[in-house]
């Protein structure tokens, strides 16, 4: 190989090395002299390498949105709305033989049976006008109309619900002040699983409560005598049921009414809630619900702890609905319902348009959390936690130290052996190994991959493969020398022959690592696969190209060489 070609190769190697050094140790701004001190280098290193939660500490949560509940609720609401639409239809009046029935378990459909003489076409038209049932398949059998949610539509709804849940979770934790959280789907989007990673949060209890908090706000009309009579309450569920004739029709609900003690509790405590000894009957569906909220705020009347309440404002559409309804219902009782519990019941003094309040004696913290969850909207369904992993920063630091120590220890052993066993040529191997490590880390920085503990393991194994490549090449050169070839031919043959093997071994491992990456989910296996793949790709460059270039320089500078130190 002539000098020019060698210089070009050397230039390529140097350029790549410099880029690698910059990626790993360099600052992402104009360098200053401080960047060349030991402290500066360490700071830049910490800045550049994106450490995983297991190394720097943080929380890893896998949760699942209960999508079946979501679809079930949706079916029930639609059934109710469809029934109301038919009942409200005049000219002609449509007789209904039964209430809407909703299928249980897995099948999302509901049926309405019409009475004698009813025209199903008119009924369907009436429903279509009021309820959006585009994705529902409508079938008829006699006077019964059934609406079914098809599989494709189910999936679409599930994906939407998961996305909505992700957005809500994101806004909740952003407000809470978690830095750089990761929120993504885990597994297939229809599985309802969401992965949440929060670096730096090592006690996730409050965040978990905040995320899982249900905030289904609804303003509902109470079935009661109008003001000035007091609101009609019942001491037991049975009594409330009896008032409805023994069964609860679909357009009524019995809710517990929890009265709160007056604010006598000590500062810092939410006053004890009395057991919900009373029940009220409300009209269902709600007049306005939480999705119409524009804003919610925790406010204190007196500034004392335990004296907070939440005020809220509606969006224009909600305000319109609320205004219309309150205008028609002056002196009727209205309930502020939070998570199926009546928080307050009051009569309507005058028409109200856009705001309301949840009174009750909250602490500052609980009022703020509640306002936050109200503002971010209601989750489409309940969330359950499947997996929680937290690592405190000190535990993370320990893992780094032991991982790095083990890696460096392994590397030192390898270097000593290579120099001892292969003498002069061992230097080639050492250069190749060190460069391999540097470039692998640089590649991790470049693709913004996260270095995790399994990732460090992948790095160690990548180094193992790199050593193997060097050994394969050197052993082969030795064999060729022994077979009587001169030094340049032996080196060329050694590299050529070993290269075939190296390519095969590397491709095999890369193939299995790629499959591992794809099938391994979001878990720790991925970090392992990524560093291993990068390490192997880079090894093809360092063990073959770089090492060969060094041999070539050696031969070029000492053409009469009669002994190769190997």
């Amino acid at each position, binding site marked *: 190989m002539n000098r020019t070609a060698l210089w070009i190769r050397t230039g390529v190697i140097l350029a790549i090395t410099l880029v690698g050094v910059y990626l790993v140790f360099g600052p992402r701004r104009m360098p200053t002299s401080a960047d060349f001190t030991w402290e500066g280098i360490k700071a830049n290193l910490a800045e550049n390498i994106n450490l995983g939660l297991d190394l720097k500490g943080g929380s890893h949560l896998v949760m699942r949105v209960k999508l079946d509940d979501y679809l079930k609720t949706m079916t029930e609401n639609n059934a109710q709305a469809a029934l109301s639409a038919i009942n409200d239809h005049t000219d002609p009046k449509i007789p209904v033989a039964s209430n809407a029935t909703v299928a249980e378990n897995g099948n999302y459909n509901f049926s309405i049976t019409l009475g004698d003489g009813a025209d199903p076409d008119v009924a369907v038209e009436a429903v279509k006008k009021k309820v959006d049932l585009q994705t529902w398949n409508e079938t008829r059998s006699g006077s019964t109309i059934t609406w079914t949610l098809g599989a494709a539509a189910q999936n679409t709804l599930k994906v939407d619900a998961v996305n909505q849940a992700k957005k809500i979770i994101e806004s909740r934790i952003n407000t809470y002040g978690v830095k750089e959280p990761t929120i993504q789907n885990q597994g297939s989007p229809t599985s309802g699983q969401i992965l949440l990673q929060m670096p730096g949060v090592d006690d996730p209890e409050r965040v978990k409560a905040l995320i899982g908090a249900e905030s289904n706000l609804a303003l509902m009309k109470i079935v009661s005598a109008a003001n000035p009579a007091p609101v009609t309450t019942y001491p037991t569920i049975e009594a409330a049921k009896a008032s409805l004739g023994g069964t609860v029709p679909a357009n009524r609900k019995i809710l517990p009414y929890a009265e709160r003690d007056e604010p006598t509790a000590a500062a810092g405590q939410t006053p004890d809630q009395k057991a919900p000894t009373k029940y009220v009957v409300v009209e269902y569906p709600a007049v306005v619900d939480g999705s119409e909220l524009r804003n919610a705020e925790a406010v204190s009347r007196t500034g004392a702890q335990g004296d907070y309440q939440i005020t809220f404002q509606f969006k224009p559409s909600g305000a319109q609905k609320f205004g219309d309804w309150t205008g028609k219902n002056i002196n009727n009782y209205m309930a502020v319902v939070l998570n199926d519990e009546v928080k307050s019941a009051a009569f309507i003094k005058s028409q109200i348009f856009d705001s309301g309040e949840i009174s009750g004696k909250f602490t500052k913290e609980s009022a703020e959390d509640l306002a936050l969850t109200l503002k971010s909207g209601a989750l489409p369904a309940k969330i359950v936690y*499947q997996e929680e992993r937290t690592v405190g920063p000190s535990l993370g630091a320990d893992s780094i130290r032991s991982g790095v120590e083990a890696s460096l220890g392994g590397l030192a052993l390898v270097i000593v052996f290579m120099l001892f066993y292969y003498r002069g040529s061992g230097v080639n191997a050492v250069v190749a190994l060190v460069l391999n490590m540097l470039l692998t880390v640089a590649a991790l920085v470049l693709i913004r991959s996260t270095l995790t503990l399994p990732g460090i*393991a992948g790095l160690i194994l990548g180094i*193992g493969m790199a050593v193997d490549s060097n050994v394969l090449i050197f052993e082969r050169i030795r064999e060729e020398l022994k*077979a009587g070839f001169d030094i340049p031919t032996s080196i060329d043959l050694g590299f050529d022959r070993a290269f075939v093997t190296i390519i095969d071994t590397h491709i*095999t491992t890369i193939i299995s690592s790629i*499959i591992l990456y794809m099938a391994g989910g979001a878990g720790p296996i991925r970090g392992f696969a990524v560093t291993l793949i990068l390490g192997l790709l880079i090894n093809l460059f360092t063990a073959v190209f770089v090492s060969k270039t060094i041999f070539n320089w050696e031969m070029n500078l000492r053409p009469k060489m009669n002994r190769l130190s190997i």
Partner: protein
Amino acid sequence: MLNPFDNIHFDWLRRRRLFIGVSIAIMLAGLFSAVGRELVPGGTDSFNMGVDFQGGTIVTAKFRNRPSDDDIRTALNNAGVGDPVIQSTNKPDEVLIKIPLLEAETNPNGATEQDHTLQVQAGREEVKKALDTFGKAAEGDATLDSTPDAAYKIIGTDSVGAIAGSQLRNQAVIATLLGLVGILVFIAFRYDWTYAAGAVIAVFHDVIMVLSFFSIFQWEVNLTVIAAILTIVGFSVNDSIVIFDRVRENVPLRRNDSLFEITNDSINQTLSRTVITAGLVILSVLALVLFGGEVLRSFSLALLVGLTLGTYSTIAIASPIAIWWQAKLGDSKMKEAIAPASTKGEKLASSARKSVTRRPVTR
């Protein structure tokens, strides 16, 4: 030039029955351990499954004054947590507390989603409740140093519900099997499917052997073990390919020798590389076993066993199987093709033809 591996002429293939016998013996021991443990009433399970695959909670706590393992166990039992596992880490003041799935969840009929929430929510709380008997915890951002009256701090939690546990397990098994299929296809494409079969059988051998060790010694099987097994698979195949590659190269050069001789010599020719690489990698892994800490213990143990066995299986399992299969194929081909001139070439099986056409014979 240092070279202790010159002129080794060990007849590996002649001893193949011995090797395969040893392997089968260890596998039988593993099978015996796995099945036996399952059959003995009240005994341990086949595998010591970690919380990753089984569900459960691990809490890492740092104490100001570390109570004895027995005290911690008693405190947990008093708090109603059965079967806790207490482990020391390489730090004197830290302790790993592992509790199994809470009762409600192990009941297959009553396992509702509420119960799964229970595990992830309650696992940590149960442990905390028990540890509170030793004194107050440093909560949130507070450290032991910043709160003088705190007795301990929970510095890490791993809590996995039963559903997530089985998902992780299935995912890991599927990923491994798919990876093996990928390897099989690639070797079949590059060499010959008999080689692919040999390499893959060797891989299965390694994985089963590692699992046998894990069952016999009851080491904990967790997610990192899967990563280790995948590494072992990679290295085992790597070793097999190095030898196969040499066989492929030697076959057209030595048309008068039998495949058995060629393979034996190929193993011996690559023996120096095998020993050096395997030795270095195993040494590095040993560093991991010694200094890698408790978190990596299962991982590094699996690697240590697997890499050692992987090196051995390449020589003792993969090559004999590939050769045996090739010989079978060669024999039948000879019977079919009566043309004697081509028999020598045919006897060397399909990879030989590939080799001749694909690779120039330079020597």
